[in-house]
């Protein structure tokens, strides 16, 4: 096995990880062999074809990208295989156009009708509408995962998914409501319950994945977020209610005579409230930072509580490195682009709103590339590739030989896929 396994690696060596991890993953783990250059070529080709075909090619584009990522993810020396086809995604989309669009139009119209006819129950109508929408999104995601899993194979053994999308979506909605009622305290319990449903319903061959997640441990990551954001909100709320009694008010300044007096008063106003709001702002920013840490730490946590047959994973993923990838991929390019496009626009054309009228097509192309092309390139080259490398480098597998005991299951694959998710435009990763 070993001979051909080495050949299977195709001569691609990843060498930025620490030595011991390298050996550990070589001995029997997960590797990612994706590289930026071929991926960039693929992304650009996809982009051009998508534009030329009025975005119909997007289904095949997504399929190509998945084939690349799957085909470069190596488990115990063998690559994963993505067996999905663009045509399946396209048909899924067509089905949604036939069924979902008329339904959603009626649904929207009903909302407008009820809101305008019975303004008193407007809030109820809106809540029902939003809840229905969230339900549908969760349903769509569960079904899309089923499609993706059934199109994933390793050594000829197919993955799959059991469970019911409706049940999952209902639970997701109920947990969402619970987190509102409990002011966010129940979030870890909801997360673990939903993730347990996802993972234990995911199959590889006949074998379901195991999940040993504990809400208490997720809560350990969650409470700083809750505390910081809660304190920030509380602080802001107190200031809001006390604003009349403790400091200068804007309305009083408006009534001051003389521009100079008013200007000084205005500066005073801003300085006073600015200083007073600062602690709240700091708390809020810290809360957001911990939220980011929470999200990423959950990825690591997932790997550590998931099992397949008797094989276990152990991840030492670094949260701050992932934050770094994220910033490099999604923050930096926009800062640069904003400066490149925004500054000339302001300098050349003061006071004008951007319209396609004057410079027409060239501007459209630039804007189109900026909003459609660049995010895809940076997402793949600067985020997903480093992320996949980092995940696989920091992942070790215990009892990997157990995976080889897995047996092909009964295949019950959906024929077409993912239309609903496409319709919701939430398939953000393009993977």
């Amino acid at each position, binding site marked *: *096995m070993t001979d051909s396994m080495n050949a299977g690696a195709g001569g691609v060596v990843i060498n930025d990880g620490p030595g011991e991890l390298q050996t550990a993953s070589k001995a029997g783990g997960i590797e990612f062999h994706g590289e930026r250059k071929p991926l960039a070529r693929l992304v650009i080709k996809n982009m051009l074809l998508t*534009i030329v075909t009025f975005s119909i090619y*997007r289904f095949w584009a997504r399929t190509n990208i998945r084939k690349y990522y799957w085909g470069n993810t190596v488990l115990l020396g063998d690559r994963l295989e993505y*067996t999905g086809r663009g045509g399946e995604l396209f048909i899924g989309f067509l089905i949604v156009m036939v069924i979902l669009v*008329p339904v959603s139009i009626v649904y929207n119209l009903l909302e407008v009708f009820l809101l305008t006819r019975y303004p008193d129950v407007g809030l109820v109508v809106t809540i029902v509408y939003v809840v229905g929408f969230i339900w549908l999104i969760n349903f769509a995601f569960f079904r899309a995962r089923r499609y993706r899993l059934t199109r994933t194979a390793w050594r*000829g053994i197919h993955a799959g998914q059991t469970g019911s999308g409706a049940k999952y979506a209902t639970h997701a909605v109920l947990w969402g409501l619970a987190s509102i009622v409990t002011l966010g305290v129940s979030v870890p319990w909801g997360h673990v319950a939903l993730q347990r449903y996802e993972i234990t319903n995911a199959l590889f061959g006949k074998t379901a994945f195991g999940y040993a997640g504990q809400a208490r441990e997720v809560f350990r990551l969650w409470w700083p977020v809750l505390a910081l954001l809660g304190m920030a909100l509380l602080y802001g709320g107190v200031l809001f209610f006390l604003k009349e009694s403790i400091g200068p008010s804007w309305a009083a300044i408006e009534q001051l005579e003389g521009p100079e007096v008013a200007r000084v008063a205005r500066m005073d106003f801003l300085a006073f409230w600015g200083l007073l709001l600062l602690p709240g702002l700091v708390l809020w920013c810290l809360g957001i930072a911990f939220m980011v840490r929470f999200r990423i730490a959950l990825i690591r946590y997932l790997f550590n509580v998931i099992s397949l047959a008797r094989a276990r994973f152990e991840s030492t993923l670094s949260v701050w490195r992932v934050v770094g990838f994220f910033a490099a991929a999604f923050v930096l390019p926009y800062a640069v682009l904003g400066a490149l496009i925004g500054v000339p626009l302001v300098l050349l054309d003061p*006071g004008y709103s951007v*319209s396609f009228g004057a410079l027409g097509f060239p501007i459209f192309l630039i804007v189109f590339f900026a909003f459609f092309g660049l995010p895809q390139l940076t997402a793949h080259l600067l985020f997903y590739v480093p992320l996949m490398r980092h995940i696989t480098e920091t992942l070790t597998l215990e009892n990997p030989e157990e*995976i080889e005991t897995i047996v092909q299951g009964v295949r019950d694959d959906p024929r077409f896929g993912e239309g609903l998710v496409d319709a919701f435009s939430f398939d953000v990763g393009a993977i």
Partner: protein
Amino acid sequence: MYVFPARYFDGVTARPTDVAIRIDADGVRVQDQDSSGILASWPANDVRLVERPRRGGEMRLRRDGDGAERILFSDDRALTDLRANCPKLNRLQGGFRNSWRPILIWGSAAAASVAFIFFVALPFMAERAAGWIPQEVEDDLGTRVADQMAGFFARSDDEPRFCSSPAGAIALQRMVDRLRDEIDYEGALTVRVVSTPEVNAFALPGGQILIFEGLLNFAKDAEAVAGVLAHELGHVEHRHPLEVFLKNAGAGAILGLLLGDVSGGAIGVIGAQLYLRASYGQEAEREADAVALRVLNASDIRGGTYAEFFAQLREKHGEQTGALAMFSTHPGHVEREAHVRAESSGRGTVLSAEDWDALRTICETE
């Protein structure tokens, strides 16, 4: 016949077997390494490559059909032999063969669904929904759209967008007062002149009417302007602007859905704007024309120069399609000119000569 080493997965377990592969005209035979027993044999027509092979890299074979078995090898000579013996080696999994039928069926159903929504459901529902929108909401909407449109056509930010020289404003009000009682519309009516050379006029939701300065200069006399204004009042009476707005909103949403997440926002917005350009359509224009004639006749305003206006537009049309884009969706100018001439029974004027001068120069500030 060529024999080479490979790894074989039987499609039942994840455990690899080291095997020897034989390739000949019958296909591929999978044997134990010591060539003692045959584990599997694939007919030549069923052998497929999983993905495009790279020279020197590992290659994967699958068997057509259920497709769970795999043969993995890295041997370029074997690839050459496979190419020689297996005619369908490069055929895609499933392939177009299996998907053209559902694509055709669902594709035509989707096209029918979209067409039905665009041409039947959307207009019908926009008409219905226009009746449900409360007046306050419509007024608010109209004000915002009017400001936006005036801003869009403004020459630059420092010039006034809406013209209101005192004498001109009085003259405009006089013209509006002459016409407004003749239409069946309860809501507020706001008629304003926008400073832009374009020859055009718009009716917007909430009884907002915009007349472009270019139209005042282009018209031969006050009666021609009154005709245009009466036409726009016709749109207001029929609540066309709100319907068009609702139709656009729906069309934008559907276009966004059609084009997907990739380009969603941008193209959806552009599509909706294109749709907006297409304006009301011929039937609505005929309805507005009918109201215009009714209003002109009831107010005893002569329609001659309004009719001539169409001839003027026809002459101008060739050189200035862009500015007249809106008028181009109107029923044929010749037909409309003849129609106005035939049906017009008014004889009087709408404004005094001084008022007309004041209106024409409403955008001039002294």
